[in-house]
């Protein structure tokens, strides 16, 4: 009880997500495959973390558990001080709505509404005043270079514009953390770069804590820290420092030392 209290107060300082000894297995008793074999990870406010790993290493699984879409088999996951493994679905939905922003590989914008409405939707559903929604939408669109696209429908936008829009939508509720699964996966390198620059900017200006899953070293090099996931374990972690180019070559080195190219 006491330890929990302490933890919570600490968390309020800067811990956003904390996982301890996270285990996830799939399948029935006899045919179980353990995908995550005891993972520890703490994410602090204003982190920008990239998780890399070969295909099938469990990146998406980890992200799904963190974002409360999936449940762990064992272990503890706390999100902003709430133990997400032991709360009701209703509270979970609320937590998801208030604390988490999602960015998906395939954008998932609604094709029935304009980009502006897509970005505004979470806040509107939350019952915020229209004035505030409008201001916030414009502000975010400006930050992501989308002012000119606001009145367009998704089918009129490029992939990069759609993905930046999806990030705006994730940011509009000012979540504690943003989870992004292969956000540049469907983009060409130019559009991917634009998106990552934007993510960096909002992270550096203190507006967002980001956890990103990727297998692309170039993409990962925009993060502040890169974790390597392999065989269901966190293999190592490297931090960027000031030079991105140098960081990129360190990631490549790490990749080769672990064995093989992920992409």
């Amino acid at each position, binding site marked *: 009880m006491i330890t929990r209290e302490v933890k919570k107060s600490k968390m309020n300082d800067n811990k956003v997500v904390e996982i301890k000894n996270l285990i996830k297995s799939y399948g029935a008793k006899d045919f179980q495959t353990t995908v995550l074999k005891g993972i520890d990870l703490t994410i602090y406010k204003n982190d920008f973390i990239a998780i890399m790993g070969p295909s099938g290493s469990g990146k998406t699984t980890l992200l799904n558990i963190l974002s409360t*879409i999936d449940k762990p088999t064992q272990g503890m996951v706390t999100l902003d001080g709430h133990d997400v493994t032991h709360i009701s679905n*209703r509270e979970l*939905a*609320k937590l*998801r*709505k208030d604390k*988490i922003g*999602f960015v*998906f590989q395939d954008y*998932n*914008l*609604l*094709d*029935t*509404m304009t980009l*502006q*409405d897509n970005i*505004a*939707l*979470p*806040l*509107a*559903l939350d*019952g*915020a005043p*229209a*004035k505030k*929604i*409008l201001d916030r939408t414009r502000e975010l669109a400006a930050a992501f270079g989308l002012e000119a696209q606001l009145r367009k*429908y998704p*089918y009129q936008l490029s992939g990069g514009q759609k993905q930046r829009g999806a990030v705006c*939508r994730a940011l509009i509720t000012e979540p504690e953390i943003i989870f992004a699964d292969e956000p540049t996966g469907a983009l060409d390198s130019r559009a991917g770069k634009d998106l990552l620059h934007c993510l960096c900017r909002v992270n550096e200006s203190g507006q967002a804590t980001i956890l990103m899953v990727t297998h692309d070293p170039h993409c990962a090099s925009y993060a502040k820290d890169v974790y390597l996931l392999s065989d269901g374990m966190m293999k190592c972690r490297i931090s960027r420092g000031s030079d991105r180019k140098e960081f990129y070559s360190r990631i490549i080195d790490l990749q080769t030392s672990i064995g093989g190219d992920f992409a």
Partner: protein
Amino acid sequence: MSVFRLAFMNFRNSFRSYLSLVLSLAFTILILFNFQNLIYSGPFAVLGGHNKQYIDMLVETVSVVLGCFMFFFLWYATNVFLTRRKREIGIYIFMGMSNRKIGRLYVIEISLVGVTALAAGIGSGALLGGLFQMIMGAVSDIAVDVRFGVSWKAVNVTGVSFLAMYFFFALKGYWNITHSSVLSMISAARQNEYVRMPKTVLSAKAALGAAVLSAGYYLANKGGRQSMLNNALLAVVLVIAGVYLLFGGLIPLALQTLSANKHFLYRGQRCLWVNQMVFRMRKNYRTYAMVCIVGICSVTALATGFAMKERYHNIVRFDNQYTFQLLTNQSGLGEKASALIGGAGDIACQTSLAALSLDADHLVLKYSEVKRVAQERGERFDLSEPADDETVYLSYQMLMSLIVHEQPVPVMIGGKAYLVTRTVRDAYIGYMQREMGCFYVVSDSEYERLKEQGTTLYIHNYKLADDMDFAAARAAVDTLISNTDENFTARVAVDPFDNDTDWIKALHSLCIFMFLVFVVACGCIMFMKLYNDSFEEKERYLVLRKLGIPSGTISASIAQELLSAYMLPFAVIAVSAYFSVHALGRMMYTSLFSIYVVSTLAVFAVFVLCYMLSVAVYRKNVL
């Protein structure tokens, strides 16, 4: 694997996606089957040979209407199915199937659907037939002898006509598939580009629609003699075109404008459902327009049915105002007749008055006399005394007329011109009014003046207390009839057991039947469309849930969206039907407003039911 096995497996494994088509086809079959039942038993069996020619005419008319209806309904249902199915089986192109093979697959699948629907339709028709007839019997005071049996003739007629039309559309689908481009088959371009139309196009459509629709409403209710039928036909065409333009123009424009106003839009779930609605309206406006037109038909049919029933009662009441009426030139005949009839049975009421015969075509009555007689009989009387150069014509209750008189018309009586200021359809002089059609009421002073010129005749009216005494009383009265040179007496006897007008009752039942057909069709079309849509929407709602939007919020948004999806057409139906029922009322010389309200409420009830069903199914499908 053979195409046939593949088709069968598809059909078995994803029966759910075929369900809406099966149900709507089964419904059509049910209607057809019940109509056959209606012909071979039901109200028509009760009516004797008297009304044969009317009934045959009615059955023919309704058969044509039903046939057309079925044709369009099948067209629509198979089209909706084809669009969706094409996308799903289009994938087989990647597995090396040719268009023709896919077309064959489609034909086999849709045949399986048709056969299943036929079995389901006739099965449920046999089960529900009795219930259906009971409902009809309840609403249409005809003693229906309810039969639960299956008439083979009905099964045959239904099966053959359904299958003929159905396979026509199945082959049409085959043709469509074999002539489709690969791209449209796999519909990789699933992007929805019908989301927004240029404002100018919409505005033009909206303006045109509003103009056409108001022209239709205006024509439907415009006065004018003889042109009523032409007006009505033109009005129907205009209203149909107007409704299409309304849903293709004005309503999307309004919704689009609403969704552009962010202060309106960003309020809770509105952001979600208004946008969905705009999208849906652009995509489905033809369906909505069709639902509206069928809905207007259903309200009008029910209103016609109710009006027929009311009119039937009025006609019967009019005709039975008096059982016997005598028109004679002898002054003392009244007492004699009274004694004779009284000998055969009790007299409930008897009245007498004088009339002036001025020429062959006109019998003139005195205002105060008519008033006295009406009051003695207990008939409503609201005539004011005509001026000396005016007259009131006593007419009778008729079923409907396409000619609406509005201006007073002049008439020459005894060499003087009078203006007919009013035509009365109350039975002041009973059945004689209909039989002779030559009664004119003039002011008391004018009557006294005319008295010099004409011969005075006497009218005696008797109403029997008990209908059972009719035959004996008629025999007694008939002894009075004479037609010598100086004496003449004419007698009118109204047989209370006569069923000459029973065909109106059949008309009434048919109207109710048509109402049921139309209203269920309305509900079916809406339901089917939404059911189909819910499959497409699934992805969209999945996204919302991934974003962490609680299912309660999504549920509420669905309810809102479907509510407007149902209420928009309903509003159009209610407004348009008001005008069509009003026009009908003018043809029938009555105000049908209360009937309009009741009929609209009936449609509303069906819509509410379908709405609740849709919401339940929708939620189940997307959540």
